[in-house]
């Protein structure tokens, strides 16, 4: 198990967005207002530290477009997000 990451505000924000159901990179960018250069490295780091896991969409027909990689929160990530929510009150907002 990799060493647990020290959650920053940005990382916590991304975890919060994933928890709220925004599971794709560009979606997370749009909902958090963060730049892609921030979101993607953060996603890599969170995945490496075992807070989130990724999986590929199943292949759809042509109309649905190409598959995307979507990210999900795991249990450890949920715990860390709860801890971070106490540190960063801005995260303790209304759910979607």
């Amino acid at each position, binding site marked *: 198990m990799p060493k647990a990451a020290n959650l920053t505000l940005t990382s916590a924000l991304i975890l919060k967005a994933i928890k709220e159901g925004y599971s794709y990179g560009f979606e997370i960018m749009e909902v958090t207002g963060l730049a*892609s250069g921030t979101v993607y*490295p953060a996603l*890599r780091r969170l995945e490496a530290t075992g807070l989130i896991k990724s999986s590929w969409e199943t292949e759809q027909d*042509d109309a649905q477009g*190409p598959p995307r990689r979507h990210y999900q929160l795991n249990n450890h990530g949920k715990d860390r997000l709860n801890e971070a929510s106490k540190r*960063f009150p801005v995260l303790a907002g209304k759910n979607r």
Partner: protein
Amino acid sequence: MRRTHYREIPIEARCLIHALAWALPRDYGDCWRREWFGESWHWLKQQRFGLENIGWSTRLRLFGHLVGAIVDVWFLLTGGKLFKRKLECIGRSSLAPVAALFVAVAALWPFRVHLEAVSPSTNDQNAVLIARHSPFMGKLDRLSTGEIKFLSRRKDVFDAFGTWRTYSARLTGSPFPVIVLQIDPAARKLFSLNLEKGTWPTYGHGCEVAVDSSSADSKEMLTVNGTRCRVVGIVSRPRTPVPYFTLLLSVESGMPGVLPNVIARLRSGTSEGRLNQVLDVPFDSQRPWLRSGRNLIATPVKQIRGAPFKWGGAVFLAIWIMTALLQRLRSLRARIVCSFETALALLIVGLPWLRCIAHLPVLSGDATGIITALIYGYPVVVGTPIALLTLQFQKRCCRVCHRRLVSPIKIGRYGSVLMEPAATECLCTEGHGSLVSSTALCPAQQWFTWCNKWA
């Protein structure tokens, strides 16, 4: 990904994604490309219902998003290792190399007398520079008159023995100062007196007296700084940015005043032990408290000539090692940054200074004044603003991830000046920064309580 989907993404975005994917390892690159293509396609689909006509504004926005792909690739290539310690943070800045350069310059300071012996006209064959090793911080000092007289009588060891000094002087009729390498007649054997007749009319600015005196056969004397001298040679230095040259002068009647430097040529076959025995001068009339014999050292001119390059290399190595120790060279990125900053510090501060050092023989000695002051003060004059700028940069830089501190946040309240004064603190894009821990790390409930107080 199907071919039709592939073509619906604008070509510039496709090119960028492909190019970046090539930078990654093949197995991961395919996965990475698939992710970015998928995201781009769906984002475009979301922006417009049909992907047939994509406007320039949408293309630009997509391209803006894809700039993050560059960061993503860079992050993946470097393993995502960020500098998390304060020492490493300082090490990444230019402050460490500049500080190291100051240390190196201070360490090299005592060797400046050695460098003075490097003259373009010095004959290297068996030539040695004799100087006093001062007990004070290892400084090299010039010899006293008594010692010079004593050593000059040792014909069994020294084939030639003479004194020299350098200074700047202004000749009659010439608006520009010339650099004078003044030698006593006994030292003429030690210098290659190559007369370059074409040099003086070019650089001498038509000074007639000097033109007449630029011949070795000429008996005309030249008055330089009040001393009657004979011009015995001119050495041009065409590679220098300022077309200056060394005017070799020979004085007939010694050089009163400042103690000159001593240069000598050893007789062939003279051993080092024999030389050291001779340098064991029995007395020193000016400094009787010193047992001067063990303080005189002889350094070959050949060895001195390459000193600026050797010391330049040593300084670079020292700075590199110091910076490397600070950064611990954990990754390729650290090594690149370390080398880059070292080279940058040397380029900005060190290289011009070393270039001046190379010309020190003609600018040191009695050539005091603004030029010498600038040369010796250059590291301070240039290095200090760089250090201050670096400190300023550090103030606006995140201590954790080295990103720029932005997002100013108002803290405190204006009514509570003493206990918690109002101020603006900044956060980086990662959420680090200089927030007061009591505010940032307190439980949420307490935070809201304090918020109400501020309100």
